């Protein structure tokens, strides 16, 4: 990216582009060998499109916001309402579509928090070693010993049920997995001579951990994060089902199952379609995660 000599600029930039294009091509050719991961990519792609264009796609967008119309309550699936309506007369298809937004938001927020905390602590613990490592990893173990749902229950009991508290509660236990994963990675990465090389060049701990070690741990983090997207959505739906997450009238899949639960024998469609949406999302992210694991050639527990 030299800027001074115009001739060289174009040339070097071209080199960089060629090289990048070559690598993307290679990664794609490896990925495309696995049909299942391509299916996964298609599923996730569909989810994102639905989430982004929800107001356009949904036939009754106002129903997602909670417009109630008892005159069309609990109708079976029909052409007018392909997934039927719930007990308040809201179009389930519209709510499932808007629920995609909540689900993806949940996954991204929780994992962003979990990865920031976990990766930072894991890097520090693994790199510093000794007492620092022992203290950080024991704290991690303590958090790991508490099931996420239980921790979430405690957090929400201390505050009040809401989508945001649910996300914070899940993240508060989820980071431990990343701390452990990264700490293990760092232990093996830091044995490489390039770490010693950068130390001998005069690099400080920040440069070594974030610029030398972290890029080598991106693979496992990416794979685990992709696999975790599905699980976080599942746990989030679980909390909402228990009434600890999103509250009415938010269009949340877990919440929709909760309201449909009482009517499963009579109005089966109320709980079934949001349930299928959850399965779809979890399956999609898992397929992609498995595909990435093969492409990036990493082990995640």
């Amino acid at each position, binding site marked *: 990216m*030299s800027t001074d000599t115009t001739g*060289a600029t174009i040339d*070097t930039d071209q080199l*960089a582009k060629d090289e990048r294009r070559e690598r993307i091509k290679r990664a794609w050719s490896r990925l495309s060998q696995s049909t299942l991961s391509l299916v996964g990519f298609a599923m996730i792609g569909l989810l994102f499109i639905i989430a982004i264009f929800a107001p356009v796609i949904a036939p009754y967008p106002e129903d997602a916001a909670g417009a109630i119309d008892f005159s069309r309550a609990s109708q079976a699936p029909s052409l007018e309402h392909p997934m039927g309506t719930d007990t308040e007369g809201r179009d389930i298809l519209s709510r499932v579509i808007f629920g995609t937004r909540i689900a993806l938001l949940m996954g991204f927020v929780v994992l962003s928090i979990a990865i920031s905390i976990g990766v930072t602590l894991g890097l520090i613990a693994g790199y510093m070693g000794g007492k620092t490592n022992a203290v950080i990893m024991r704290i991690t173990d303590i958090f790991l010993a508490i099931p996420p749902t239980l921790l979430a229950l405690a957090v929400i009991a201390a505050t009040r049920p809401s989508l945001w508290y649910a996300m914070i509660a899940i993240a508060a236990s989820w980071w431990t997995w990343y701390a452990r994963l990264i700490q293990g990675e760092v232990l093996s990465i830091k044995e490489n001579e390039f770490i*010693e090389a*950068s130390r*001998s060049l*005069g690099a400080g701990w920040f*440069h070594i951990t974030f610029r*030398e070690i972290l890029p080598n741990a991106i693979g496992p983090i990416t794979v685990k994060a992709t696999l975790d997207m599905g699980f976080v959505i599942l746990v989030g739906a679980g909390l909402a089902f228990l009434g600890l997450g999103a509250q009415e009238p938010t269009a949340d899949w877990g919440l929709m199952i909760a309201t449909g639960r009482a009517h499963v024998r009579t109005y089966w469609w109320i709980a079934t379609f949001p349930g299928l949406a959850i399965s779809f999302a979890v399956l999609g992210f898992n397929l992609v995660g498995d595909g990435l694991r093969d492409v990036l050639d990493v082990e995640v527990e």
Partner: protein
Amino acid sequence: MSQPLHTDRFEYAPGDQIQDEIAVFDDKDPLLRVENLSKHFPIYEGIIKRQVAAVRAVDDVSFTVPRGQTFGLVGESGSGKTTLGRSILRITDPTHGTVEVDGTDVTSLSGGALKKQRKDMQMVFQDPSSSLNPRKTIKQIIETPMKIHDIGSAGERAQRVEELLEMVDLPREFMYKYPSSLSGGQKQRVGIARAVAVNPKLVVLDEPTSALDVSVQARVIEILNDLQKRFDLTYIFISHDLSLIKNVSDRIGVLYLGRFVETGDVDSVFQDPQHPYTRALLSAIPTVTDEDRQYKPPELTLEGEIPDPREKPTGCAFRSRCPEAFEPCAEEEPAMYQTDSTRCSRCYLHDEAYQDTGGSDDQ
């Protein structure tokens, strides 16, 4: 790398026991001056982790290297040569002793001053596949030292990378490649480019060619030679390959269990090794040509392995494998003896007191 031998030696008498190894070579204003350098690794035992002993990986080593010359460090694996190299560069902190690079005492530095000093002393590592970060492009790798020491703008650094690639004879198309797509020899050249990127004065080469095919070794050595001439670099060349050491060094030091057993100008040591260990090492070199053979001392095979450094023999450390060992060797470690104007050897055979009792000090 062959420079004329030093002519202005100070007076000596053969067989003199010497206290100060550095004085023998009497270098005026050496670039590197290592004095009594030791690196001991503590051994802990028991549940309370009490220190019971220490492995003396490097033990009281002294030498100097004149500017622009190459000092060869020879020894078997486990002799402490890599630890010595790392202690000099403060990659590990030495236990005792001082290291002066161009007049600066490196051992007393810390923090920012040490970081600044590191610009002057660089290392080329043994295994090029492990010493380059696989997730960085060649350009990123070579410009890392410039970034760390905050040298130049992005444009200037890129230009410098191109220059450096040219110096190590790599095409600039390599800038955006990753180490995995390079061969071993190419990777090592990247390692060399990184080491000279910030214009160091001293470069420690830790077996820079031992991981490479013989066919590419010669090219790497050639590049190192060119760079040395061009930038007046001072090298410490660590290797167990004696024929290689002979070709690249001006002066060598033979390490055994962390101690120098013989130091001297490379030609005199190779032509007429003084210490039994050096003789054994030289006699073990496979030879092809007659020219090689003339350096080869009579067959002398060493028995056994280098001892566990935690259980060094008492007296002379080499005693357990030395074909010439006699009584005094078990009692106390011999001092360094100056055997002629260019060499020192740590062996009782050179002591006049034992000239008659000792084995065959025929030299």
